[in-house]
């Protein structure tokens, strides 16, 4: 395929992915908006004033960046894992496998599809947050870059989960037992400076902490971790997962017999 044909193939996959989650917006866009709005109400307005300030900000100001990032992470991951596994399950993946689309275009199509949903939900949540607090953006470049890279990283992780999954149970295990604990313990609701030294050290092994804190740095200008190191790490993980995903596609892992 020449570059023009590859572009057509990429946009075809991407449009199909966007069309899919827009078609079922009641399952893809509405629930995270409602869930996060409830977080805003409970943690921001009801419990937040009793907690007081955190890192020099009101609790609602502190928690909003984390909740936006949490919605981006879960939706970027969830979109790719459910869409690609569904494609495998219905065997419509064969439409792609018999076509001349290069594997990296297949991967990019699905990953960017996941990124679009992650960012769409992130945008909805951001707009909802404006009903509860005034958002400021301290470092626009950092904010945009980290939210995009995080969405890419978790979309790739969702793709790998979908490749290995054999059943619908397999696509809910990782989000339930890995993704949710990492996110909840990744500094969304608290600053790790509140933790004892041992648990601070343990928290530093959680990659989500770096993404949430870098995003918070982009919005509020404060962070528990080194932002430059966070970018290196997230970019490195993105590259690692991208090439691993590509390897799985080249090998036809659980796609070709």
């Amino acid at each position, binding site marked *: *395929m*020449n570059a*023009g*044909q*590859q572009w*057509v*193939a990429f*946009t*075809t*996959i991407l449009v*199909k992915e966007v*069309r899919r989650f827009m*078609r079922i917006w009641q399952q893809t866009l509405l629930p995270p908006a409602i869930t996060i709005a409830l977080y805003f109400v409970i943690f921001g307005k009801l419990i937040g004033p009793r907690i007081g300030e955190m890192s020099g900000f009101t609790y609602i100001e502190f928690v909003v960046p984390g909740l936006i990032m949490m919605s981006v992470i879960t939706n970027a991951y969830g979109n790719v894992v459910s869409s690609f596994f*569904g*494609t495998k399950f*219905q*065997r*419509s993946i*064969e*439409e*792609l*496998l*018999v*076509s*001349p*689309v*290069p594997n990296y275009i297949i991967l990019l199509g699905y990953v960017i599809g996941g990124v679009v949903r992650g960012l769409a939900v992130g945008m909805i949540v951001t707009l909802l947050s404006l009903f509860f607090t005034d958002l400021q953006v301290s470092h626009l470049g950092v904010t945009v870059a980290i939210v995009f890279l995080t969405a890419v990283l978790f979309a790739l992780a969702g793709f790998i989960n979908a490749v290995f999954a054999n059943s619908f149970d397999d696509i809910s295990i990782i989000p339930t037992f890995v993704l949710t604990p990492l996110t909840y313990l990744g500094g969304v609701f608290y600053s790790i400076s509140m933790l004892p030294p041992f648990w601070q050290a343990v928290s530093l092994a959680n990659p989500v902490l770096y993404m949430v804190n870098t995003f918070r740095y982009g919005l509020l200008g404060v962070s528990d971790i080194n932002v430059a190191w966070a970018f290196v790490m997230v970019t490195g993980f993105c590259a690692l997962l991208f090439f691993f995903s590509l390897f799985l596609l080249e090998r*036809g892992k659980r796609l*070709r*017999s």
Partner: protein
Amino acid sequence: MTAALSIRNLHKQYDNGFEALKGIDLDVQPGDFFALLGPNGAGKSTTIGIICSLVRKTAGEIAIFGTDIDRNFSLAKQYIGVVPQEFNFNQFEKVIDIVKTQAGYFGLPSKLADERTEKYLRQLGLWEKRHQRSRMLSGGMKRRLMIARALVHEPRLLVLDEPTAGVDIELRRSMWQFLKGINASGTTIILTTHYLEEAESLCRNVAIIDQGKIIHNTSIKQLLRQLNKEVFVLDTREALTGMPTIEGYPGQLIDEHSFEVEVVKGKSLNKLFASLSERDIHVTSMRNKANRLEELFVSLVEPHRNETAEAQL
């Protein structure tokens, strides 16, 4: 002339150790309508799966119009359209989206994709259903949808894996007409089927595959020439107590009102009827027992199986 499909020494061993293909050689010429026949588990779908890249080969070489799939699979795939045995489209998508999306996967610009989608959906009688979700279609419509999808990039080689399985006779015949038209316009077609009548009606050349080996590769005409006997079933008015013994017409009793006889091709049936008349047996109806090709198919596959079984002892 470069073959539309050239297969050399193709082997496939699955992860569980099952050897599905044991060194297949096959050539299909451009413009041919070629049948790949074989019993269940013979290796037909594995062969097609490898050609279409859904199955990884263990060893061997495949070239599509001279393009080696190991060297330039992307180009080779451009030449192929596939209609699989099982429905493999998204059941929640609209008919028109399924076909147009496939056009996009082959890099067709949007305008051309729209034109081709309309062309093939109209030709296959699905244009009126274009905005329906695919799961709402009947079984026959779903089969036609897969054919439209396979044709949208106008492949030079169309591969159909049992395309009329579960389709009623009327629709099957209309699909035959359509496929004959596609073939007449220059598209090479490879067909696997269980309906031997289908192969006899559509195809010019045939390969019979059994237990992972090609056991016969010839023209349909040549194959039929090998058939030198026919079996007729005769129904009688009188109840029979045993098989009437008539010299030169071996047979067997089916039930008390019917029996079958084996007749060498070209041999007169007059003597048979004369003998039956002498015994006051009145024949009320007579029919050919089975599809001719089906008989031949069994006669070719069974000895091969016996040889294999003996070799294993």
